């Protein structure tokens, strides 16, 4: 692979519509912070069948991580995030993802990119297997359908200094 690869531990969603808490759990676990999906759902204000406004992911900073929510980003931003060792949660529409049979709003963790092969690798909390390779064109369509929103979760400078 020609690009940075992050060893983000995979987690599946533990309740219906729990994709975002599961993605947050993966990103936190990557940084060595262990929380349950229910704890995360409570913190970000998850509502059954509606979810939570995407910027609420920034509340994870209560647990000493740096969170940057972006209302619009592009593939370069994702690539730069990966190169800096930052887990990226992307909001996508599954109807554009070839491995999905349903068309629903969803969240995945971007864990790698191969720009030569044109592949984005995601940890999808709706599936046991991970990572899943997605052609960059399909990923772009899926991400664009919900406005190219993402949340980047990295190690807090304060936390690093105290470890």
């Amino acid at each position, binding site marked *: 692979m020609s690009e940075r690869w992050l060893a983000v531990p995979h987690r599946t969603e533990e309740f*219906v*519509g729990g*994709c*975002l808490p599961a993605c947050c759990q993966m990103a936190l676990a990557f940084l060595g912070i262990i929380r349950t999906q229910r704890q995360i759902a409570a913190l970000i204000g998850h*509502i*059954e*069948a*509606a*979810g*939570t*406004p*995407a*910027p609420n992911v920034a509340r994870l900073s209560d647990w000493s991580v740096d969170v940057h929510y972006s*209302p619009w980003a592009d593939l370069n931003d994702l690539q730069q995030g990966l190169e800096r060792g930052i887990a990226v949660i992307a*909001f996508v*529409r599954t109807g554009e993802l070839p491995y999905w049979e*349903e*068309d*629903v*709003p969803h*969240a995945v963790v971007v864990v790698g990119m191969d720009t030569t092969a044109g592949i984005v690798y995601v940890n999808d909390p709706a599936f046991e297997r991970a990572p899943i390779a997605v052609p960059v064109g399909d990923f772009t369509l899926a991400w*664009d*359908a*919900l*406005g*190219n*929103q993402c949340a980047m979760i990295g190690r807090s400078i304060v936390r690093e200094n105290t470890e």
Partner: protein
Amino acid sequence: MSVDQRQLSAVLEKLTPGESQMVLQFADFLAQRRARIVDAHKARRKVSAWLVQEVGNLLMGGEPRYVAGERPVWRVPVVVSYGRRGEAACVDVDAQSGTLLVNEQTPQEIISNVRALVGSPTSN
């Protein structure tokens, strides 16, 4: 009546009823096209992005319906996909400017509708 209007009127008078009808239909087509600067795809994307950002990440815009009128809009249903499936509300997008026609209360109203939908024993 302006010179242009007089000339147009003179041309229309020379046409057969069928030809006049065709010209009028074409003029209507041009007017409708002008009114829809924002297409259905853009309207749906705009609503979906707003829902994820302001209301909840499990909500998405459905298939838009064009509503003609003084201020033509794309009416985009708010689709609930998890738990029970259905439409919780509609969000309008100005078909000319692309402006979302929402206010500060709209997110809470949608959440209330989602709760009512998933709590309703008759919805599916």
